């Protein structure tokens, strides 16, 4: 069941992408990756992932804009979005709360916590 779930990681930081890829693949998820928001947007449209994990500060298209662009499409096809943020502004929490099926995870986060969040959303018991 878990194998059918597709997770998209969008981050310009290669070490983050690498560690999350290893963590999620070890739990049977299919992982696809993008290095910036624009590439991520294309993959959301083409690959229709079940979960999107995205950074905010990225070249070409930042995470906030990306979320706001794809949020309307969640009305027809819902998927979980996890925002990895190092920002401390209350404004961040506000715009995230206005998005559908979107949570934020403050850096530095634990990969295990991230996995728990994904499993919980997808209803997977381990």
């Amino acid at each position, binding site marked *: 069941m878990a194998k059918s779930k597709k997770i998209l990681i969008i981050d*310009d*930081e*290669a*070490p*983050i992408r*690498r*560690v*999350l890829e*290893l*963590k999620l693949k*070890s739990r049977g998820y299919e992982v696809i990756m993008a*290095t*910036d928001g624009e590439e991520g947007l294309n993959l959301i449209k083409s690959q229709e992932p079940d979960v999107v994990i995205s950074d905010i*500060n990225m*070249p*070409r298209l930042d995470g906030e804009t990306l979320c706001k662009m794809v949020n309307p499409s969640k009305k027809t096809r819902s998927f979980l979005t996890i925002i*990895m943020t*190092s*920002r*401390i*502004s209350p404004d961040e929490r506000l715009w995230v709360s206005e998005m559908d099926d979107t949570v934020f995870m403050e*850096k*530095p*986060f*634990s*990969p*295990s916590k991230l996995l728990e969040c994904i499993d919980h959303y997808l209803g997977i018991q381990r």
Partner: protein
Amino acid sequence: MRMKYSFFAPRSKGDGTQPRMRTIKMRLSWIGMSLLLLLIIVTFLFSKMLTRQEEESKIQNLRSNGIHLVNLIALFPIKDFETAKRDFLLRTLSEYTSQEGLIYLFIHDNTGKPIISFAPGNTSSQIPEHVKMQSLFTMGLAEQSFKTAVSGEIVYEFAKPIFERGEKAGTVRLGLRFRPVAILSLQHISILAMIIFSLFAVLILGYYGIVMSLKRLRTLHENFKRNDMDLPTDMTSDISARHVMPMIDDLEQSLSQIQDKLNQIKTINSELTSKLGVTTFEKNQIMKILDSINFGIIITDMHNNVGHINGYMLKLLNKKREEIIDRPLEETLNHDDILSFISTQEILDQDGPANHKEITFPDLAPGETFQVSSSYMQVSERNPIGKMIFVKNITHEKLAEESRHGFIAHIAHELLTPLTNIKSYSEMLIDGEIQDPDVQKEFYNTINEETNRLSLLVQNLLNISKIEMGSLTINRGLVRTDWFVDGCLAPIEASALDKNITIEKKLPETFPMLMADKELLKAAIINILGNALKYTPESGKITFSITEQDGYIVFEVIDTGYGIATEDIPHIFDKFYRSDNPLVTKQTGSGLGLSITSDIVYLHNGEIGVESELGKGSHFTIRIPKEEYQIGKE
């Protein structure tokens, strides 16, 4: 000069007494003469009145006698005067004829012909014709008076018709003499003398009363002029003065009080004038200060009428002072945000904390941000007399605030990213999720690199903090450039080997000496070399050279990397600036390295420059002056 002397000489105290006395005597003579003239006029009028009264009495008697006589005679038939009673009448009348009595008597028949004519002397010819005619033709009693042409006597003529059987049968005319009263007659002279004596006595008493009172007042006036309020002692002995003394004392006291008040008012007036001058000066000073300060001020009364507006605000509103002063704020200030802010403030507590609101003037000051605030002007507690509205340009503060927020966000991101990596990688290793030894090694290396990255970032932040606070000090010392070059290249050589990048060193045969802060300068050059390594693709080449040119030690770093876009070159030394080039952004970087490098070079009075072409590589040059070393050598 002589004329001047002779002009001023009579005004001296010793010589001025005689003329003044003469003037006083002359004035008193005039008063005496006037009073004497007044006495004569009053006496004349009084005697005139007396004689007039007596004359009126005499005339009254004369008229009474005349009318009585003419009525009596008119009772007799006309024929009696022709015959039997004619002589009797004439005899009787002759007895009346005296100086004070009858002058003439005529009895005419109905044709006007005289039947009896009793007129001694030539009296008949002195009677005016019109008097005779009026008497003859008047149907009732006629009374006339005239003055005789010759003797000038005053004659009263009385006439009455004689009626018989209902018809006029004749006329009786009677003339009586009137003698005017003579004032200097024996019987009047004593009364007149008494009147003159009485008036004379009253005038003398009045004269002295007035003269003494005037003298007393003159003394008082002169004392006032000399500011000497002492009274002459002989005044108290004077009878007239004693009468007026209480009045003068009161007057003196009143005048003294008035003078005191006058002096007080003069003093107060003088003080007020000087205070007004000071206040006007201070007001002008305050107005100048208000006009010179670099924020807008509008002062209104409690009805929002503008009392003052400073130069800054006028410039901001692009209006003239006369267009705004003494006019309602709502009419003159065409700015909805400010007006709504002020109306909101009016609702709030006057003693409450001052609020403010950000506003803009898109037409007059585009792109700039202003802050409006207001406060009440209070003369006492809860007694406001007006409002002050402040408009301050906070564009720079806003930019600084945005910059500060951006800095914090950026630093947080830069610090948390390597921390996240360290945490994630170490957690995976601890949880035993990585079993493959090669992957384990990769993980340990990543943790090590991220730790170095974090360390470098913290070091850069500390340097930036020191630079911004002005506390970054240079510990200059003698630097051996051969050792220095080795110290710079060592940290990058391992990574260069991993990326198969060749490092070419162009070093002189004799290494120059340099006075510099070795650690800071090394950090600067490592930043340049680190960038060259980071942004040069595998199998590239980095050339590092050191030369001595024109008193400068010149370090050059030339790479065959991605190069820098022309539009990025002016900004690469700005704090936190990173290019949008994906080849750049895919590399980790804080945007602080080149900023700190340039600061360190400038602290050494050096220069830093860059030449670059996109796709071909970059060429950085750092020039540090040698002069400090030469001074140290001496």
